[in-house]
C-alpha cells in the first residue's frame, strides 16, 4: 500500500506546470499562428483599400493601376502566409481534423468560384454594370463570401473570435455599399482591416498569457 506517486520527484505543482507548458507548445506547433494570419489579412485590407481610396481621390499622384497592383500583391502575400501556416500546422497529423480542414478549405474555393461566375455573368449582360456599380459590388460580393465562411469556421471550431469577426465583416460589408464610391473603400479599409487587426491583437494577448516567459 505504498504511494508510488509520492516517491516520484515530480510534485503535483510541477506536473501541472509541465502540462500547461507542453499544451502551449503543442498549440504553437500544431495550430496556425492566428496573429500572423489575421495580421496579414488585416494589413492587406487596411493598406489595400486605403490605396484604392487614395487613388480614387487622386491623392499623392497614386494611379489606380498602382493601387490595384499594390492591393493584389498584399492579398497574394496574405494568401501565401495563410497557406504556409496551414500546411505547416497540419503536417504529420491526420484524421478527423484533416477532413474538416479540407472541407473548410474547399468552402473558400467554392465560394469565390461561384462569385467569379456571378461577376462574369453580370459582365456579359448588355451594358453590364456601370463602373460605380462594379466599385460597390466587386468588394461587397467578396466580403460576403469572407464573412459567411468566417461564420461557418467560427461555428465549427466553436471559435467566438472568428465568429464575431464574421459578423463584423458582414456588418462592414453592408455599410460599405451605402457609403457609396469611394467612401466604401474607406469603410472597408478602416472597419474591415481594423476588424482583422483587432482579432490579431486579441490573439497576441492570448499567446502572451499562454506562454509563461
Amino acid at each position: 500500500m505504498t504511494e508510488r506517486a509520492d516517491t516520484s520527484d515530480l510534485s503535483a505543482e510541477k506536473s501541472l506546470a509541465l502540462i500547461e507548458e507542453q499544451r502551449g507548445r503543442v498549440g504553437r506547433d500544431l495550430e496556425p499562428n492566428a496573429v500572423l494570419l489575421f495580421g496579414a489579412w488585416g494589413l492587406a485590407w487596411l493598406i489595400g483599400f486605403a490605396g484604392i481610396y487614395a487613388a480614387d481621390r487622386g491623392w499623392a499622384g497614386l494611379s489606380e493601376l498602382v493601387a490595384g497592383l499594390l492591393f493584389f500583391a498584399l492579398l497574394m502575400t496574405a494568401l501565401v502566409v495563410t497557406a504556409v501556416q496551414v500546411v505547416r500546422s497540419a503536417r504529420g497529423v491526420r484524421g478527423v481534423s484533416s477532413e474538416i480542414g479540407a472541407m473548410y478549405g474547399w468552402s473558400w474555393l467554392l465560394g469565390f468560384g461561384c462569385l467569379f461566375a456571378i461577376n462574369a455573368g453580370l459582365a456579359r449582360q448588355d451594358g453590364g454594370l456601370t463602373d460605380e456599380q462594379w466599385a460597390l459590388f466587386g468588394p461587397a460580393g467578396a466580403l460576403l463570401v469572407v464573412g459567411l465562411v468566417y461564420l461557418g469556421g467560427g461555428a465549427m471550431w466553436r471559435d467566438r473570435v472568428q465568429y464575431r469577426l464574421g459578423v463584423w465583416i458582414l456588418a462592414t460589408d453592408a455599410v460599405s455599399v451605402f457609403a457609396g464610391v469611394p467612401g466604401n473603400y474607406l469603410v472597408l479599409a478602416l472597419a474591415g482591416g481594423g476588424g482583422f487587426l483587432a482579432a490579431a491583437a486579441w490573439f497576441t494577448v492570448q499567446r502572451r498569457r499562454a506562454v509563461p516567459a
Partner: protein
Amino acid sequence: MTTVPELDPVIHAQARLRVMTSLAALAEGDRIAFPRLQQVLDMTAGNLSTHLRKLEDAGYLEITKTHERRTPVTYLGLTRQGRRAFEDYTAALRTLLAGSGNGQ
C-alpha cells in the same frame, strides 16, 4: 486527513506526462506521425519509443503503421482508455493541489 488521490504511475513521469499531454491535445480521432510527435516533444527517437511502449502496454496508446509513398510511417493517438486516464490524472492533480493549497 482526506485520502490522497493516487496518481497513475504510468503517466506520472516527466517524459510520459509530456507525451500524454501532447496526444491529448489532438482532436479526438486524430493521429500524429512519429517524427512530428518527436519534434513537438524534442525527444530522441529511442527515448520516445521506450516511453511509447510503456503507454501502449498500459493500453493508452493506439499505434498504426502505414506507408506513405513507400516509406513506412507510424501514427500515434490515444485510445479512449488513454484519454480517460489522462483526464483522471489531471483531475487527481487538481484535487491534490486544492488539498495542499490551504497549508501554504
